[in-house]
């Protein structure tokens, strides 16, 4: 029979291996589920998980989709470590894009190098402001940030609809619900000539490095971990839980806002009702796949970005509906949470004593 024994300390090899085991299990389970639903399960999973990596012309697309996922997940992961559950990153992402677009609409007749930085700043502040509401409610009134940050996501999305259908509708846009296209000075520059690879991709990598240094080499990062792991010890050691809540909420909100602005000023080039596509929620999976570690998150972001790219491929190769991508991503999170047990427990096969 199986014998379960609790490990004294988390297993380091399993810490690194379990995400890979989870990916393998997800592929197997995905094949079974998609086949059961009447699709070609083998090719569906191949299209979602392997094709994006095997075809070099898809790599730029993976990068473009990984950048916002990584940026958002970096902030969320730092919060999760401190037991601050900001699950409304999608709303902060939308508000960041709205704030940045506000600057773009004010400056659309102007030119100058300063316009894009101003938009970036507005995007960060927009996301921060939206995250400040649940932070304030949690610190001052002990209202669960889980519920408030999520409720605010619905509000942010409705606000976006209101703006693009109403006051911000492009006057020359044939009545389509969308804003003006951004001008050249308002658009994120590409870093590789002739590809989609925009400034957001190196920015995401740089931010991952900064987040890693912050978490591993600074007192602030240490405080976050202590507050999360041992709240009583943190109080004793003089680390303030309130300050940590504020800092992690504002950081994750700011990063989500930045990601939203980059998406608006990059791939979209304007705001439309299709703008919120759930990166804020998928980033939660990225954070867990990366084991809440900044460098792991880069890996997690690439994997989840590939499922988006692969999901599109599977739509044409095996006619898998787009919704399958979301379900596949959720299966991955289930498997990640399940394989986490290997880190904390030693499971061995033992013959029953006669």
């Amino acid at each position: 029979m199986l014998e379960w024994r609790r490990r004294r300390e988390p297993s380091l090899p399993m810490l690194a291996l379990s995400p890979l085991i989870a990916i393998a299990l997800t592929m197997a389970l995905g094949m079974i589920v998609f086949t059961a639903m009447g699709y070609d399960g083998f090719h569906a999973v191949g299209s979602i998980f392997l094709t994006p990596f095997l075809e070099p012309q898809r790599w730029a697309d993976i990068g473009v989709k990984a950048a916002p996922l990584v940026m958002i997940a970096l902030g969320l992961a730092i919060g999760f470590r401190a037991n601050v559950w900001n699950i409304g990153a999608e709303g902060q992402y939308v508000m960041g894009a709205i704030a940045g677009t506000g600057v773009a609409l004010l400056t659309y007749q102007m030119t100058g190098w300063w316009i894009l930085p101003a938009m970036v700043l507005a995007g960060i502040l927009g996301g921060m402001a939206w995250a400040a509401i649940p932070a304030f409610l949690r610190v001052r009134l002990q209202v669960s940030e889980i519920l408030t940050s999520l409720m605010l996501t619905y509000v942010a999305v409705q606000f976006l609809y209101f703006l693009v259908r109403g006051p911000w509708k492009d006057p020359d846009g044939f009545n389509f619900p969308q804003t003006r296209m951004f001008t050249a000075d308002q658009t994120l520059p590409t870093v590789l000539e002739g590809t989609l690879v925009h400034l957001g991709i190196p920015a995401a990598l740089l931010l991952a490095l900064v987040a890693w240094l912050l978490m591993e080499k600074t007192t602030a990062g240490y405080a976050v971990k202590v507050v999360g792991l041992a709240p009583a010890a943190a109080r004793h050691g003089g680390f303030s839980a309130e300050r940590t809540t504020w800092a992690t909420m504002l950081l994750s909100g700011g990063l989500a806002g930045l990601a939203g602005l980059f998406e608006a000023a990059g791939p979209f080039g304007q705001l439309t009702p299709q703008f919120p596509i759930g990166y804020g929620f998928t980033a939660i999976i990225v954070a867990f796949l990366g084991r809440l570690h900044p460098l792991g998150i880069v890996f997690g972001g690439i994997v989840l970005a590939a499922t988006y790219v692969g999901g599109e491929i599977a739509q044409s190769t095996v006619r898998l509906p787009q919704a399958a991508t979301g379900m596949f991503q959720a299966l991955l999170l289930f498997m990640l949470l399940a394989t986490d047990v290997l880190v904390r427990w030693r499971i061995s096969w033992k013959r029953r004593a006669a």
Partner: protein
Amino acid sequence: MTSAILVSILMTLVAASTPILLAALGELVAEKAGVLNLGVEGMMLCGAVAGFAVAFSSGSTTLGLFAALLAGVATAMVFAVLALSLNANQVATGLALTIFGIGASSLIGAGFVGRTIPRLGPIFPAALSEHPWLRVVFGHDILVYLSLALVIGIGFFLRRTRPGLILRAVGENDASAHAIGYPVIAIRYAAVAFGGALAGLGGAYFSLALTPMWADRLTAGRGWIALALVVFSAWRPGRLLVGAYLFGAVATLELQAKAAGVSFLAPEVLAMAPYLATIAVLTMMSLGRRTGRLDAPACLGKPFSAV
């Protein structure tokens, strides 16, 4: 004439409140046992799509309701295995369940978009259920009466029965309950399954009774509002009833304002109302509270392991 409008508003109010009341009652029982299942929205969506699919292919809304109940239990069991048996983080597992429910319901429902089925009908004979004003009392479907009966039933179960007491003990102090010899994990499994069943039915209320037509993500965040209502109720079924009907009133106002073509408020602003109202209510709860942590069960969300 005006009384006819009033009757129709009251009917809308009941219909808008019932799915949230059902889902919130289920979550209340799970939380009383110490389990925080944030996957309500996902379980509702799975119930909604299972109920619709079965009702559509069998032609029977009753079978649809059973399918929804089973789908809710099945998804709740995924949560239970991960969070209770494997001790995974309950917040993360609940979120995974919601993401899964959104994806799965949209994938299964893709073939049903725009299809319609016969609406879940009232259970009393037409003389009562279509009476101009008696229908306020007798004109509802079975889930409305079930949800009201459950408010009383769950309240009685938790406060007055021995199993209810044990369930509360498991939620308040799992270690002691275990020491006395109660099967903590098994009781939590049962509570989570019950929560899943009611969330499934609550979801099916959208696809079988409110809009008997399939649309993607038709629960539109109501599962999260149900979670907030449990906090608002301070874990008491009676107050949950008040909260759900207050919420139903906000949703009805939104619908009425839209129908009446209120021009000074954009439809998007009206659509924000339920979520803003929920935040406002949670905030006022905290302001009005005098002591402690809002009467939450002491072991809420904490993993338990006997080893």
